[in-house]
């Protein structure tokens, strides 16, 4: 249990997808103009990540890893399919995104309209594939750990996009030099926020 909480807190604050690895920056910068839409996208990301990471973990463990196929028969024990992992992960993510899109369209048409083109683009949100690849690289031991990691990363991403959206809403009233408006200042603010998040590094878990 202690271990799970560690992973959860780590993935939200210390290994934050945006501030530590810059993953999912494209939609982070494009959608963060108002708090409302960004929180919608953030929730979609938490949901997709919370499903895909454990799913990819199971696939990785029982299908892709070197020797993973040995549960079928001993003859398959030295088959190594790990080079296929990119392909499998992205297929899982693309189909899950399709699912989320259908659910959102059915239950919340206003949200669907405001997210517009960016919902299908969750499939190419680097943060989601990134979470699966980090899960693979860090070699989590149990399904619970992978799930907690997926959810935590999603929540970290949500936190980041909602806070920058709130800052950008206020920024509209401030006097920024012309060429720095929009994209430029967003980058620099994200940099400053990342510095703030670095202070979590001091937490020993």
């Amino acid at each position, binding site marked *: 249990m202690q271990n799970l909480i560690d992973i959860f807190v780590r993935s939200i604050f210390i290994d934050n997808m945006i501030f530590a690895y810059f993953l999912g*920056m494209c939609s982070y910068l494009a959608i963060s103009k108002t708090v409302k839409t960004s929180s919608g996208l953030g929730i979609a990301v938490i949901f997709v990540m919370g499903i895909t990471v454990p799913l990819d973990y199971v696939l990785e463990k029982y299908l892709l890893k070197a020797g993973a196929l040995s549960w079928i028969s001993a003859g398959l024990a030295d088959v190594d399919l790990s*080079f296929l992992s*990119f*392909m499998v992960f992205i297929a899982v993510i693309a189909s899950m995104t399709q699912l989320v899109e259908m659910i959102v369209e059915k239950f919340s048409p206003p949200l669907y309209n405001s997210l517009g083109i960016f919902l299908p683009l969750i499939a190419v949100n*680097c943060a*989601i594939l990134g979470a699966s690849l980090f899960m693979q690289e860090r070699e989590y031991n149990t399904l619970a750990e992978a799930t907690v990691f997926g959810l935590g990363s999603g929540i970290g991403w949500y936190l980041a996009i909602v806070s920058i959206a709130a800052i950008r809403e206020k920024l509209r009233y401030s006097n920024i030099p012309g*060429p720095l408006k*929009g*994209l430029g200042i*967003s980058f620099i603010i994200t940099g400053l926020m990342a510095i703030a998040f670095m202070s979590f590094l001091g937490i020993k878990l």
Partner: protein
Amino acid sequence: MSEKEPLLSKKNLKLVKDPLNENNPITVQVLGICSALAVTVKMKPAFVMAVSVTAVLAASNVVYSLVRNYIPPRIRIIVQLTIIATMVILVDEILKAYVYEISKQLSVFVGLIITNCILMGRLEAFANANKPWPSFLDALGNGAGYGLILITVSFFRELLGSGTVWGYPIMEKLGVYNTGYVNNGFITLPPMALVLVGLIIWLQRSRFKNLIEKH
């Protein structure tokens, strides 16, 4: 486009040149930022990354442009992802075989080329409606524009952060350490990459006023 048009006509050259500056994938189209920032601590990985992205982009742009008329629009995203993923697997295997050290440093970011928005963006916006040759040039241009920013950012981060250029200890050779100069370790940390790109955007938009945003 007529068959007689020369291979390097003005229009085609424009495809290569535009992304270098006024239509840069990173600073103007806001594509592919994710990987651009994380691999720019040193110049060598940044260069390898830029070359890999260009290679994947060129190959998948051409392949997708060749098959574009046979793909039903509804399933095109999956097809695009499959093409890109195949190319990325190839590049990943090549990197592991020939430059293992750098491939280790890039870690998950090679895999993340699949979700690099530049690829989907260019496939969707350009290769979807153009013939293979212009698509190839478009890929080269965008790859180069991406590489340009990567190299610029990594140059400053490596020079100021580690005091080297392409692994060559230039600050030590110039003898600046004797005057009390110290490497700024802060610049090798992730946040400074963001600030540097912000500054590059500022510089670029001060020169090209038409790029300035309203908000």
